[in-house]
């Protein structure tokens, strides 16, 4: 009996100590964190000095191995060597970020886990509205002076003003992808595309997620007098008028689409697969350069080419933000600056790496950099950059994207 009681006493004390330790750890006070908005007022050297030897957790979309390779194997080692910062990229995008930060905000967590976020569009809008982003800070980055801030694609994020709360990182433009071997004379405008679809029933479709909706938005602009019609915030009446015309066209096209328009592939990956396997003759991508990068990866045929419709396709920019409770805002600012610098922008643009467009303005760069960028863009399979710029159309209020996606799911799918 005595040994049993001692045994029980020991076990109870152990459990008690464990519970006490957990409580103490939970109540631990963290050192006060420096906010990016305050660091932005300091000289840049002192921000770099503060960041040295620290870790930056970066929440980003991890769905593309090419992007992951660029971040993990090119950017991270260089950031470590040059600034002594350990860069850890983890998964997190869109709604997830908004939700998690909202929960942290409501719980009063003054220090979160992530210091850097990869965001744009609706996500930026949601974070800004709820005051979940730190800032303004992006204008103090040394490389910010090189950004093409006159471009309407970069200076406005889905019509929202970044206002220094997010730093631009890259741009992409939507394009169709076709196979030169199968379709030597592809359609060049929306009207020609519609005629092509009717002449080749069952050989065209679009996906249910982001790329498909962006493609439909471009067609919406083309049918309703251009992107300018929808500039200046969300207008419900304009939206419904435009949607009626768009959906009437889609309804009339339905019998000529893949599977008679009764089924749609879930995402861009499935769309690429149907294209590569010869079930359909066009694929779509938010990044015009995927025609090359995916061909290099063997996902689509080597004879694939990008096609930007002359009525214009949507171009947009993606950015980096710092959450309100970032534990290492200094490190995040240094990493954002590194990624904005010409070296990283050039590497990112290589077709063998990622082929993501640069946000830098060429005439603000020294001549040697201009030559380097030109040589990277000089691939005959790519859409020439002046055509790209001529046909680029900006994003409008994120509400249009939301409503179009919802209504398409309700009424067309």
């Amino acid at each position, binding site marked *: *009996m005595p040994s049993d009681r001692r045994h029980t006493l020991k076990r109870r004390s152990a459990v008690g100590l464990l519970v006490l330790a957990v409580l103490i750890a939970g109540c631990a006070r963290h050192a006060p964190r420096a906010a990016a908005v305050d660091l932005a007022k300091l000289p840049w050297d002192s921000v770099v000095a503060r960041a040295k030897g620290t870790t930056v957790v970066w929440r980003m979309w991890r769905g593309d191995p090419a992007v992951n390779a660029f971040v993990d194997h090119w950017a991270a080692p260089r950031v470590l060597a040059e600034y002594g910062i350990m860069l850890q990229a983890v998964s997190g995008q869109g709604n997830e970020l908004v939700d998690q930060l909202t929960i942290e905000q409501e719980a009063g967590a003054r220090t979160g886990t992530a210091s850097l976020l990869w965001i744009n569009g*609706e996500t930026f809008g949601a974070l800004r509205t709820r005051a979940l982003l730190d800032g303004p800070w992006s204008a103090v980055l040394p490389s910010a002076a090189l950004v093409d801030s006159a471009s309407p694609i970069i200076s406005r994020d889905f019509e929202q003003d970044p206002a220094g709360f997010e730093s631009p990182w890259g741009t992409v433009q939507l394009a169709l992808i076709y196979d030169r071997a199968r379709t030597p004379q592809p359609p060049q405008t929306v009207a020609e595309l519609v005629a092509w679809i009717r002449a080749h029933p069952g050989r065209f479709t679009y996906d249910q997620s982001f790329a498909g909706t962006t493609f439909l938005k471009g067609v919406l602009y083309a049918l309703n007098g251009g992107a300018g019609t929808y500039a200046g915030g969300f207008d419900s009446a304009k939206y419904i008028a435009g949607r009626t015309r768009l959906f009437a066209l889609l309804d009339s096209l339905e019998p000529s689409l893949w599977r008679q328009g009764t*089924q*749609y592939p879930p995402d861009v990956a499935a769309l690429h697969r149907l294209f590569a396997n*010869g079930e359909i003759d066009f694929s779509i991508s938010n990044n015009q350069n995927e025609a090359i990068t995916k061909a290099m990866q063997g996902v689509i045929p080597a004879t694939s080419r990008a096609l930007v419709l002359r009525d214009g396709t949507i171009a947009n920019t993606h950015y980096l933000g710092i959450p309100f409770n970032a534990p290492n805002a200094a490190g995040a600012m240094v990493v954002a600056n590194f990624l904005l610098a010409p070296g990283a922008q050039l590497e990112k643009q290589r077709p063998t790496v990622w082929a993501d467009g640069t946000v830098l303005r060429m005439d603000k760069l020294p001549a040697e950099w201009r030559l380097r960028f030109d040589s990277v863009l000089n691939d005959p399979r790519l859409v020439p950059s002046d055509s790209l710029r001529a046909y680029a159309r900006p994003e409008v209020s994120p509400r249009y994207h939301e409503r179009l996606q919802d209504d398409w*799911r309700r009424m067309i799918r």
Partner: protein
Amino acid sequence: MNASSRHARTVVVPLLMAGTLLGVPILVSIGYLVAGALGWVGNTSSGAVGRMLTDTAVWRSVMLSLWIATAGTAIALIGALMIALLFGRDRRLDRLAQRVAALPLPVPTVATAVAVLLLLSQSGWLSRVAAQMHLITTPAQFPALVYDPWAIGVIVAVVWKELPFLLLVALSLQSLRGSALIDAARTLGATPWQATRTITLPLLLRGMAPSIVAVFVFVLGSLELPLVLAPSSPLALPMLIQERRQALGADSHADAYAIALIATALALSTALLHEKLRSDA
């Protein structure tokens, strides 16, 4: 040390601990689902449950997911039973069958889904064989077995994934039970089929009931299979939940929670039905 405190230590305490470890997370998640659906958390409006119960898209998804789970589980069950009855008698064959049945088990669901896609899509392996045999000339002529409204591809993947599991359960039940009852029935003049029908099958089904329910509920809530193989119209229930969850309008979140609550209610009813049948029998 008297009997009651020994009983406490060896039975009640572990039971309480297991109950807490398993029960608390389940109660917390269901609690959060309810709170989300009613709009108590997450900045959303209330009334989502009512909206979802009257939304035809939700019911179409429910019917599709129920169809996939029922057809998939039924076919896997019938296949498992047939193979178990054929191979279960002989001890060596039984051992071999158990080993073979265990092989596909570690394969992740997503891998099975992709394998079915590669096999059965209109540009997949079967289609190419048909083209080589000059039965078809274009991919569109091959029947639509994936992304189709009857979810044939998903059901094939479900059977591929779950038949081995159910087979293992059936085989182990058979070998445990032994042949005493069958021998007695045969002595009394029953034909092999009668013996199987009145003794073996009911015993197997009763023993397998928890596994059948587990398979059914798992398939009902599985996201990976519809993600790769299922149609876009109607949309499988887990896909619908994910879509609403990731949509940016605040109302959609509450919708997602409400639909998830409906899905949980479906799963719970299946388990309760099983309990009721078991206690009736």
